[in-house]
């Protein structure tokens, strides 16, 4: 293999590039990314960076003395993959031939239709998003967060600490019920109300109001003013100076359409990241890996997966697919909200019981174990890093 191209220059792409070098690949290595920035860390964007306690330099994922001997092609989007030539087409018209391709294009924040051009409305996925949101939060006032998932909850928590008046709107009856289940989702999302942040559940958003309105309802030249309220489906109108839309992310795989790489909720992969095309693997948030334990494909959108799994995919790529997939550790993620550390490992779906093993939910300091037919399938910790790590270790070792 003489040229490997990594498409996507963030955590999964960087981890793949590192792993290629660590495994002795000494050919040409090209890393393509559509953002102008070198790889940076996203979790602080909703936490310390947004709060102003970490600066941009602190976000860098690379070490100062690190040199992967890679060609960095930044600020350019990949628009296609030609399977016969195994060439990547770039938005600037260039084409890059490669013997091996690592797809690491991640995910993009979902937006609300009809909000384009309305000032004060944000999503949060990139450094540029975070800069813009930070500037708006500095104006103070009323923030409405649409979506009570992890990103929405972290933004609410950070904005609350900055002194804003915060409301969170969630369409489901209980926030976080998807990842954590009803009971634990309720306990974790009670952090909002503990701190006087309003949480409105079970009601959808109809639209946003604000901006200039002409008779026809069409804004002049696409220029619109600022948002002033969030309109709910039950007729309520929640005044807002700033709105954050935190309604999930979709995998960035449009550029692969027609390439022969099978797509299904992201890039469909084997248990080691291999795709339907030889010489092409996929990693990170864009990849829907096969989970041999559950017998289904799963797209895991967490930091630790994007860090760890590329090594397995790179091993597959370098061995031309002749490796036995190792068993990836079960998915782990963390979240920080209102000063509370939330940690989770495993899959809550399919659990038939959840028991608190240590501590007390009322005190927001406890450890809970999810079981299916008596076997642990997931563990949740709030402010219990030590115990959580022990459980995580045991749980990982005990997997069949």
């Amino acid at each position, binding site marked *: 293999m003489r040229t490997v191209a990594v498409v996507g220059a963030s*955590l999964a792409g960087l981890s793949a590039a590192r792993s290629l070098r660590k495994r002795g690949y000494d050919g040409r290595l090209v890393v393509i990314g559509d953002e102008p920035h070198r790889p940076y860390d996203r979790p602080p964007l909703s936490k310390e960076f947004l709060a102003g*306690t970490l600066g941009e330099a602190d976000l860098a994922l690379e070490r100062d003395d690190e040199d992967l001997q890679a060609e960095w092609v930044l600020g350019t989007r990949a628009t296609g993959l030609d399977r016969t030539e195994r060439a990547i087409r770039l938005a600037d018209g260039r084409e890059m031939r490669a013997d091996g391709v690592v797809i690491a294009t991640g995910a993009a924040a979902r937006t609300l239709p009809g909000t384009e051009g309305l000032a004060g409305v944000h999503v949060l996925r990139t450094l540029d998003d975070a800069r813009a949101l930070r500037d708006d939060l500095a104006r103070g006032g009323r923030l409405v967060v649409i979506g009570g998932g992890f990103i929405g909850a972290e933004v609410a928590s950070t904005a609350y600490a900055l002194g804003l008046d915060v409301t969170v709107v969630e369409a489901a009856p209980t926030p976080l019920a998807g990842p954590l289940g009803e009971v634990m989702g309720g306990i974790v999302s009670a952090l909002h109300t503990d701190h006087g942040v309003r949480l409105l559940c079970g009601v959808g958003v109809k639209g946003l109001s604000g901006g200039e309105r002409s008779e026809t309802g069409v804004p002049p030249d696409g220029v619109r003013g600022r948002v002033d309220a969030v309109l709910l489906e039950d007729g309520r109108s929640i005044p807002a100076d700033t709105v954050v839309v935190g309604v999930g992310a979709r995998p960035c795989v449009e550029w692969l359409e027609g390439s022969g790489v099978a797509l299904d909720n992201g890039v469909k992969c084997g248990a080691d990241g291999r795709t339907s095309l030889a010489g092409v693997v996929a990693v990170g948030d864009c990849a829907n890996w096969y989970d041999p334990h559950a017998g289904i494909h799963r797209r895991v959108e967490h930091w630790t997966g994007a*860090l760890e799994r590329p090594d397995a995919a790179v091993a597959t790529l370098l061995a031309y697919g002749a490796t036995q997939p190792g068993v990836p550790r079960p998915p782990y993620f963390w979240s920080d909200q209102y000063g509370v550390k939330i940690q989770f490992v495993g899959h809550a779906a399919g659990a038939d019981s959840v028991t608190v093993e240590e501590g007390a939910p009322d005190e927001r300091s406890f450890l809970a174990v999810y079981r299916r037919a008596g076997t642990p399938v997931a563990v949740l910790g709030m402010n219990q890093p030590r115990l959580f790590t022990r459980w995580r270790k045991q749980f990982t070792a005990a997997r069949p």
Partner: protein
Amino acid sequence: MMIPACRLADLPRGEAHRLDIDPPVSVFHTDDGELFAIDDTCTHQDASLADGWLEGCEVECPLHASKFDLRTGAVDAPPAKLPVRTHEVLVEDGMIYVRLSTEAPNLPPCIASRLAGGPA
């Protein structure tokens, strides 16, 4: 400086003992029976490495999974970028002692700024 940590008999293999000095230091007893001492605070954020996942000669931070080599203090992967200090360990009459490194510690930005800003 030599500091008494704890009795060797009180620190089973696979466990860590944290010394509440400033900045805190932890002694690790590996599954193979070796003893190591490193700065307890992860260089990324405010996490106690004594709460971490000990495997072989490495400890994984309990929060974001950077691993530190107990022998050298080196870090393997982001989000942490800087190594932790290592300290010498001695055992005498069943007692574990730590000889503190004279190097400057690599504290995470949140703690470094707190120290710079005066008393917490």
